[in-house]
């Protein structure tokens, strides 16, 4: 059978680059001389059958050893440079005693926040909300309405602060950006636009699709990306895959001008189940480059719980004590009432510290919470409860 040069080049390239054969061996296999084999390989390079890229070894983030992790600055500083060291690091973390942790959370929940403290807490909660809509039925109109609510939560009381960000699906980002206009910012300077990405909420797709999802959201103007980790990989013990995905998504958050969208990493604690798993996933996310660690998608029960959030706050506190760097925490899903949100705020202040009560470092992923806070606010102002007809539906 006669082969064209192109077909021969392809076969030679496979044998040489994939199978590691020498030019001699290729000659034997294909029934040609080794010189001919050499020419075919050259042809393969010239015609683009084979593409070779040279990577500067100083930029180690580009080097991805087979069955290894993409080392980050953070992981390198902690001595996490390969699969083995990542596994040893995560398994070397102090265990979590579930009963003790839940008792601690229960005790924080007994703090009594009254009067001026309550008033301050309610306003703070609004400033920390990622006002969220993540429905299949979302429309541009729905998103515009959400954005108006984010800018002006209580039309009857202009002293009510605005929220930190709106959180939407990637294809809704453009509508959120357009509706925000000059109100857009980083959560402090203005309202951020957070987009879920990476095949949210299950994360069950190929890495390429997850990265494309992320790039799309960023290109549409998202300032924050809420990614999900691969829980299946995590539970099967494949920490490398989870780690590398976060690193890749982190890079996909980059914009052409060199800046990048902030990355929140959702551990989906309701699927990791044990506190030990949640602690490991939190550390892994931070080592891989997370700006925020986030409890849940809101699509799995249980979503955010106080003990889980306390645990994540302990992790970011420990990371700060270790490195001097502050990572954010975002509980999401199931926080609907002011009194619950106040308990989270107490946990933030007492576990991580007052510095974390800042939109750059703590967020509530919530939708119906905002209206309850507004009702409580109105009650504190007017002295009586109004009702859901006195806050806007969004």
């Amino acid at each position, binding site marked *: 059978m006669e082969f064209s040069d192109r077909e021969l080049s392809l076969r030679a390239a496979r044998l040489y680059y994939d199978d590691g054969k020498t030019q001699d061996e290729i000659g034997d296999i294909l029934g040609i001389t080794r010189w001919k084999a050499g020419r075919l390989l050259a042809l393969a390079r010239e015609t683009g059958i084979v593409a070779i890229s040279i990577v500067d070894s100083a930029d180690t983030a580009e080097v991805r050893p087979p069955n290894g992790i993409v080392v980050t600055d953070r992981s390198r500083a902690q001595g996490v440079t390969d699969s083995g060291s990542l596994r040893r690091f995560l398994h070397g973390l*102090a*265990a*979590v*005693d579930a*009963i*003790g*942790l839940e*008792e*601690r959370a229960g005790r924080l929940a*007994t*703090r*009594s*926040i*009254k*009067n*001026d*403290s*309550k008033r*301050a*807490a309610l306003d*703070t909660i609004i400033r920390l909300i990622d006002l969220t809509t993540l429905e299949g039925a979302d429309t541009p109109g729905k998103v515009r309405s959400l954005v108006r609510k984010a800018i002006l939560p209580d039309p009857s009381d202009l002293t009510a602060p605005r929220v930190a960000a709106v959180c939407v699906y990637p294809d809704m980002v453009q509508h959120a950006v357009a509706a925000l206009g000059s109100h857009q910012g980083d959560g402090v300077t203005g309202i951020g636009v957070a987009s879920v990405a990476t095949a949210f909420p299950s994360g069950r797709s190929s890495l390429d699709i997850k990265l494309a999802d992320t790039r799309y959201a960023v290109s549409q103007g998202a300032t924050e990306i809420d990614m999900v980790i691969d829980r299946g990989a995590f539970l099967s013990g494949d920490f490398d895959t989870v780690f590398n995905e976060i690193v890749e998504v982190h890079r996909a958050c980059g914009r052409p001008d060199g800046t990048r969208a902030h990355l929140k990493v959702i551990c989906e604690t309701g699927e990791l189940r044990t506190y030990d798993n949640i602690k490991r996933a939190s550390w892994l996310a931070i080592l891989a480059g997370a700006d925020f660690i986030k409890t849940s998608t809101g699509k799995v029960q249980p979503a955010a719980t106080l003990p889980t959030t306390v645990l994540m706050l*302990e992790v970011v506190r420990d990371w700060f004590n270790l490195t001097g760097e502050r990572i954010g925490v975002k509980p999401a899903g199931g926080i609907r009432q002011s009194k619950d949100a106040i308990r989270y*705020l107490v946990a933030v*202040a*007492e576990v991580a510290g*007052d510095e974390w*009560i800042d939109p750059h470092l703590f967020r509530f992923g919530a939708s119906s919470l905002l209206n309850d806070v507004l009702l409580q606010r109105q009650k504190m102002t007017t002295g009586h409860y109004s009702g859901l007809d006195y806050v806007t539906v969004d």
Partner: protein
Amino acid sequence: MSFRDYAPAPESTAILNLRPHYGLYIDGQWTEGGGGSITSISPATEKSIAEISMADSSDIDRAVLAARKSYDTVWSRMSGAERGKYLYRIARLIQERAREFAVAETLDNGKPIRETRDIDIPLVAAWFFHYAGWADKLDYAGLGPNPSALGVAGQIIPWNFPLLMLAWKVAPALAAGNTVVLKPAETTPLTALMFADICQQAGLPAGVVNIVPGHGGVAGTALVEHAGVNKIAFTGSTAVGRNIARTLAGTETRVTLELGGKGANIVFDDAAVDEAVEGIIAGIFFNQGHVCCAGSRLLVQENIQDEVVEKLTRRLATLRLGDPLDKNTDIGAVNSKAQLARITAIAETGEAEGATRWTLDCEIPSKGFWFRPTIFTNVTTSNTVARDEIFGPVLSVLSFRTPDEAIIKANNTPYGLSAGIWTQNASRMLRVADSLRAGVVWANTFNQFDPTSPFGGYKESGYGREGGRHGLAAYLANGGAR
């Protein structure tokens, strides 16, 4: 304003209906004592709460006679099921008036309302409920068939958990068919006197419970020496306990003593560190350290000592010291001026003996008795703060290298009331627990109490058990011995 400067959230005292003067409660009646009177003050403000009449030896005599009469004529003849009804009634009344008791206890004792509300008073009710259930099941207490009551029980309780210690003593005594004469501590008689109201409310027959506040040296001694008392149950200091044992040696009067402690809280390097830190705090700063089973000696494995101490001091900075009636207060007032002086003196000795002192940087109120949470590091086993019971918010940190060393150091005390073990390794936990000579060993927790669980000491921490089925044995004669 920082969010953490929580606005004051004081529990209202309006629920209290205190009388300006309280007498003795003997034979179902309020009477005046012959031992003068004292003014009970709130240790947080030094303001007076009420005037309390003090019993002398003739009052004790009256009380014991009343208890004897009701034992002979009513209580010993009543069926267990009937006694149980009264105990259930008392338990329910305490639950109904829980908030009132919590406020009164906090006012009188100085401990935070969070503790009286969430721990002391719920446990009081739980204790009465538990023993109410035993009243008609004494045949199944493992003491042989048909066990019988002892008669009149004299009970002397301390000031650190005033109403809870009353419940620990009165509930099993009544369930077993005894009548009681109870002397509350001089500085904390209030809730015991309110409990007399509960007895009246419950319709408890006169003389079954008699409450006689008084000075230890007068009323306490008279009660211990009274020939009409069949049983003395005492919780308090080892020195007083020793005197009681000496007095009653060679008599027919039965004795149980729950005395001091110097509990070791052992943290291994495989512990859940953050939860262990919480447990260390619960072990020594609960109730201002006024806890006989406090984990006052922290034994931490040397390779994690720095990490644990750092996390501990960081965490302590979030504790709130101040008005015990404020719902956000973690650390209340020291119970009395005398106790404050004692804590202060021992802490100074410890420092002079070379230990490194760390004290929480917090403001303390101008009035009242206060001691800032304190930790001693570089403590050697010979230091006074490692050996003497301080009964205050003072933790001594010692280190160990191996499990065997931890066990030896933990047991190296004349006391033996409590210990704690922190490890995620279950076989180590069991092995160490087996080797500790302490009445209560907590694993991955500390200072947990439950009416089903026996409590008591080894060595100088006393003898006898309170709580659970074992606690009944202290108030029953073996079946068939009669």
